[in-house]
């Protein structure tokens, strides 16, 4: 053997996590740090110390995600560059109509419409890839999902800017009404899905997850065209709080993960009717899907717990009590208990299989009610997002 022994040792990389990071990892993290510092100084007049804290926390979160999931780095760079480009052409609201790029691509409206179109395209492409056993189509599905998620994120970031263009005191993070959180839901679900696609090395779930994203996009489009919900409206006093910035996004990570778990549940049920045929098409085995379902419910449960606690802390400050049994709060508790029961059965009784998949699907119905139904059917203190 002519291979020098050193290389055999070197074959096994014994360095720790940080030492294994590449120069690019560091440059990327530092570049975003620089951007964060710039933003924290430049926009200081509009932020209190909590908001400054949240800004740096977001940076740390981004870096953590990017270091563990390398694709997130490129994604973040592209989103940042595109957003900055959009902002540079956006000195006032009128530019949104007159500037070619803004009008057709990068104003928040245009970007959100692109997100809708791309998600609507990604789903059938994924399904075609699965049914025709065409890996190429599935890769196209992945590309479309990345683009759609990027468009959605850019859309919200630009919308943030637009709210300040209306008037500085109107400016606020765009996660404050149903329209905005539907956009948030669509692309967070897309991104969480992409992460698991990468982790589990299977694109077969894309179409299934796409279904729920498309459903939310259907609602979004209806809400936009029939209700004119895309207008940026200023905030009522109860929502003028920095808690908003952490409470809502945390919640939507949870909702996204629960939604994915439910859709994997659908795939699971579909597969269980004819395992052989579906396996040949490339659907992962029942065990893998079960695992995926569990991972998403666990992720969702963790984030949902945190989000609910953040909500309680906020309520303590805004309503004078951390728990008021307001319908939204109560339904959060119901959702939480539902998944806690699911997890217990899995942990301690070792339940698996179709019933648990159905349960995950029902879980999505419960989540949907918490997220949407409560606003429509029940009245309470959560005043945003009435239809």
């Amino acid at each position: 053997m002519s291979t020098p022994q050193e290389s055999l040792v070197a074959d096994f990389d014994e360095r720790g996590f940080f030492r294994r990071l590449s120069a690019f990892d560091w440059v990327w993290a530092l570049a975003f740090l620089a951007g964060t510092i710039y933003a924290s100084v430049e926009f200081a007049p509009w932020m209190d110390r909590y908001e400054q804290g949240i800004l740096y926390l977001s940076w740390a979160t981004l870096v953590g995600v990017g270091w563990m999931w390398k694709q997130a780095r490129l994604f973040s760079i592209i989103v940042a560059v595109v957003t900055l480009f959009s902002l540079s052409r956006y000195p006032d609201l009128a530019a949104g109509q007159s500037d070619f790029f803004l009008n057709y691509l990068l104003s928040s409206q245009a970007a959100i419409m692109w997100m809708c179109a791309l998600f609507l395209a990604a789903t059938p492409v994924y399904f075609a890839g699965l049914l025709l056993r065409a890996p190429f189509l599935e890769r196209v599905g992945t590309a479309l999902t990345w683009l759609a998620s990027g468009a959605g994120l850019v859309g919200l970031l630009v919308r943030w800017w637009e709210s300040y263009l209306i008037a500085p005191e109107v400016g606020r993070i765009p996660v404050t009404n149903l329209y905005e959180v539907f956009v948030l839901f669509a692309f967070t679900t897309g991104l969480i899905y992409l992460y698991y696609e990468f982790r589990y090395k299977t694109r077969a779930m894309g179409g299934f997850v796409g279904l729920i994203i498309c459903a939310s996009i259907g609602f979004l489009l209806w809400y936009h065209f029939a209700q004119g919900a895309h207008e940026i409206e200023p905030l009522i006093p109860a929502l003028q709080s920095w808690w908003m910035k952490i409470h809502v996004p945390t919640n939507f990570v949870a909702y996204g993960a629960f939604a994915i778990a439910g859709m994997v549940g659908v795939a699971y049920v579909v597969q269980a009717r004819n395992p052989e045929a579906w396996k040949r098409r490339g659907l992962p085995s029942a065990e893998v899907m079960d695992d995926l379902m569990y991972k998403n419910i666990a992720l969702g449960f963790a984030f949902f717990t945190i989000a609910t606690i953040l909500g309680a802390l906020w309520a303590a400050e805004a309503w004078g009590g951390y728990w008021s049994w307001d319908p939204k709060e109560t339904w959060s508790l119901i959702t939480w208990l539902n998944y806690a029961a699911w997890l217990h059965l899995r942990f301690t009784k070792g339940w698996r299989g179709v019933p648990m998949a159905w349960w995950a699907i029902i879980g999505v119905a419960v989540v949907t009610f918490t997220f949407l139904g409560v606003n429509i059917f029940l009245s309470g203190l959560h005043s945003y997002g009435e239809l």
Partner: protein
Amino acid sequence: MASVPQDIDAPRRQRRSRGNVSILLNFLGSMNLAITLLVAVAIASVIGTVVQQNQPYEDYLSKFGPFWFPIFDKLALYDVYSATWFLGILGFLLVSVSVCLTRQTPGMLREMGKFREHQQERSLRAFTNHREWQTRLAPDEVEAVAARALKYNGLRMRRKDHGDAILLAGMAGSSNRIGYILTHLAIVVICIGGLLDGNLMLKYREWTGDLTLETRNIPVSQIGEESRIPPGRSSFRGMVNIPEGGGARVVFLPLRDGYIVQELPFRIEVEEFRVEHWDTGEPSLFESDLIVTGDNIDEPIHHTLRVNHPLIIDGYAIYQSSFGDGGSMLSLRGWSLLGDGADPLDIEQRVSDREEIEIAGNSLILELTEFETFNTRRVPGVESREMEELGPSFEYRLRGADGSAREFHNYMRSVEIDGRRFFLSGMRTAPQEPFRYLHIPADANDRPDTFFMFNDILSSEERLRDASERGAAVAMQEFGLNQEELVPQVAATGRELVRQLLDEGFGAVMTDLEARMASQGEEGAQQSLVMFSRLVLERTLWEAFSDALRAAGDDPDRELGESDQMFFQDALSTIPALAEYGVPLFLELDSYNHRQATGLQIARAPGANIVYLGCALLVAGILLLFYVSHRRIWCWIRRDGERTMLLVAGSNQRDPLTFERKFAELGEEFDTRLRAAESESHKSRQPPGDA
């Protein structure tokens, strides 16, 4: 999946003899009970969101009817979350978790320190995840490699010499077990904190007769000692509305259909309450200027309280919670709808006061319930999506002698609909109904006067006489009839037609006329008679309208245009609707002196910090539980003739699939490491340059 070897990982169930106590404990700590309770709490919570909680009892009564109302009341469905049965389920849950926790914790803690270095080769081979190597390396060299690999993978390690073999037992992620403990401990801690802050103490004191619920709406000074709680250390959460310029030393703790008064160790005065609005009309700011004084407060505290920014004084937290009217003084003009020609009443009344008023010998109780200066909304009853600022509005009830009441919602200013202006007055007979709006056309001066004058004239035989005679004369002239003596007769017919028009509508008048004329002569004559009658009606109405204009201070001889024509039409269609209005009185808001009240929520929550601690435990616990995997790796190293045998086995309870992958990676790692070590040792045994 490897179920057998994993079982050794589970804590040993207690082997004590099965007495009654242990059967009970087993039941309480059982998973089935826990799941049942989780689902029970969830379902009970649903009920509380479907039935709106803590509404006034009359609302429930009218919603559920006299049969269900008391049944639901008995089941405490109007306040589910402090119902005994609900707290009972929660208590059960708490017991269940506590039992589970006390039963499992010792085993788990013991388990965390155990490396299981007594495993034998045979049992290791029984693991799903195991792999074996034969190498030329010496046992101690293999051991070094294995130790390094385990360490690199973050496992703590124990070494045991089994005589013919060496066992390295590695373990990582035992904090996963702490996660289990923290999670469940957190549930207990949160429930305890929550109970401390709940109103259990209040209910207990009510139950023992120590406190009595006050259900009457009376001034604080008249509320007896038995319904008061002096300032203390206990928790509470109450509300108080304080008008501008007023103050309060108490808050009200709502309970079922009454309340308890909680006294405060300080007094809060409200200097001013402000609402600011965005251009869209949505509120942008609520704030109150407060002055707080008290025995333990040296300097009066001046503070501006805002939503989301509570003021904390000595453990009491004060929140800007709501606002309302603090007794604005309204100057009202009461228009009689009876057609009695009475002058409008002048009424001065405070919002939330009730006073008796006299109309045509009947007395009514006027209860002013609400007043708002801003109303940004869609024009009621109009299909339009545009929000508009409709200006001040007020609500009131008019209660008859029999106690029945109608509610009204009137706007101060006229509102534009289809290019015309109307004064809107909403009426409903029950609180759960929507308001139905009467459209009173505004006259050329943007006033309702002309309409009421017009109504007055049309409704009274007396006042209509003059107009009807003029109308009859004009009509006859236009028709070419010059018989003066017939004027009174024609005028009487005109008045009759007007009455019929107001009672039955224009269509009825025409069909009736045609029917009546049918008996009279040939067809041509019939038609001209109908036309003549119609002309008389129109002219009479128009003359009455001119009188109304004059009475309202307008000039009837000015050129009357299209807008007057419109007004005339609108008035004629509104007058018949007055019959359904139900009361002979329309209240117009003339001017007001606005006085607001701020709604403060005041709470003491000594349990809050316990709850927050519990939340922190919960988050930490869940993260440990989900994201730290508890795994064990054993390396069994035995000399096997010339060679050395390495057996690596591993287990992980919670995440078998991921672990399988991880274990495969570990196998590859061992491959690489062993190969590297082999060539290393080969090199060191051979003289250099011999490769």
